[in-house]
């Protein structure tokens, strides 16, 4: 395979095939390495697998393709503004259903921009939640004894806010 390849095929963890352009893949170091492996190996038939499920991978690729032109060339300010708006629209998704998957995928693929964006979005959705909602969303059990809970309340009178 020559380096003039523009897009290659990858597999999701569910076994579905996806196309990603080389320039978009540059947003992620691990993805980029994978592509280089494919581009320069003699065995062209081997399709690399990305340990991300199909539903999430679609979104990750969508993000990469959108951000690739700016990341690779450095676009103008008006583009930056447009991209910011696009990011906000892009992040309108369900926390439990998909946002956490995106978060983990961004972490695994070393995509700093997407990771920060997803964390910020998750925080915005969570800041107004109750303690029990937070436990539910993170699958966290309350591991305090009742004495410890009482002590915490005494230690942090600041826990009660105006």
């Amino acid at each position, binding site marked *: 395979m020559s380096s003039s390849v523009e897009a290659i095929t990858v597999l999701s963890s569910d076994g579905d095939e996806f196309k990603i352009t080389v320039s978009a893949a540059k947003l992620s170091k691990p993805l980029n390495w994978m592509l280089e492996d494919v581009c320069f190996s003699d065995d062209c038939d081997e399709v690399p697998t990305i340990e991300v499920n199909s539903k999430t991978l679609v979104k990750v690729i969508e993000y990469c393709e959108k951000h690739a032109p700016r990341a690779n060339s450095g676009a103008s300010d008006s583009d930056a503004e447009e991209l910011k708006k696009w990011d906000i629209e892009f992040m309108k998704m369900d926390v439990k259903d998909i946002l956490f998957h995106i978060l*983990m995928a961004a972490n695994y693929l070393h995509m700093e921009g997407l990771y920060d964006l997803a964390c910020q979005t998750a*925080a915005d959705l969570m800041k107004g939640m109750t303690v029990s909602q937070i436990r539910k969303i993170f699958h*966290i059990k309350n591991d305090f004894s009742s004495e410890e809970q009482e002590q915490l309340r005494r230690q942090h009178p600041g826990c009660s806010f105006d």
Partner: protein
Amino acid sequence: MDMPYDDIVLEIFSWLPAKSLYRFKCVNKFCNTISSPENSYFNQKQSHNALLRDDCCFFLQPNWMQRHGGKIEFHHLSSKNTTSGASHGFFQFLKHYRPACRIIASSNGLILGRSDIELFICNPVTQSWLPIQTPEYMEKYPDDDLMVVLDFNVEDSKDFMLFLFEVQGEWGSSYLHVKLYSVKERMWKSVEAKFFYGGRSLRFDTHVYYRKALHFISDCFPCLSKKSPYFRPYIMAYTIGDGSSRMIRIPKEARRGSHDSTCQMRIYKWGKPTSSDESICLVRLRKNVFTIWVLADYEIGKWRRVLKIRVKAMGVKEEDHVHVTGFIVMNGDQLIFATEMKTYGYGLSHENFMKFEEICEHGFERNVTNLSFIAYSDTLHPCGHNAVTLPLIQQD
């Protein structure tokens, strides 16, 4: 779905306001340790992220001399978003500590306060409190306002920067003596480079930290002769480090009529930090008309007018004559102002441009004609090594 890894929880939590973090302390033991004062890595990360988030609260107080306290109100920019805030203990402290207590400045979750006899840094959420060495000037002239500036550097937000500007010797010198507070040594240190500020007195209650320099706008009193180069109001920048000064002219249109007694001018940060449109904006209020310019080219000092509008035309629906008692630009894109009864917001850029909203009523008497706004966002930022718990809290 599997439980996300601890570092993902940590990452998400670092984008939460401090008030939410305190509420989530009782989620489980891990969440409790995240926001503890010992976790300095997380505290720093959270307060750094807050620099990139919008401020969503403000303090409102009468614009009197610093040594006189008085009522301080606390409001949220949006009644739908009250997830940020300050602790109950802090409000108790403000109410009961010393005969008078006043907020002079606020930055990245820390506030600089002044009582009748002392200066202090305080975090209203963690309730930590750091007394600041009383400047000699304050001991000598307790009635004078201090020219003091609190800020953070976005690139290195570990420690706060606290500057004090003092008049040297006799009045009439065009230089101010500069002191920087050393958190480590707990004392004021003189900075060699003095600040050349020109012929007018500068407003130290609002400043803009931009391009490693502190920017101040001068007053506009008609006190100088026409021959003076400082006849018109101006902006003066003090470069941190080499101490060099730079004068920036304000737009011609803003200079016109600036000697009018109803004319007020202030500068604020424009745009979001680290974004390409970050700059300085100039707000002028004269005869109930707001005009706003943005410094479009810093190097050559070129301004662009963003808005000119009568207060009545914005959408204020008050029956009596509308009198603006105070204003501020928050988050680099919204003008917030107070009338004798209420506070309002007015969008200045992008999709919120010219979007008018009523924020809240305030409780100041009608005879308080001059209010000052101080923007605030809650962070876990520590006050410094020798910080203690806010006075009066221990007794509870």
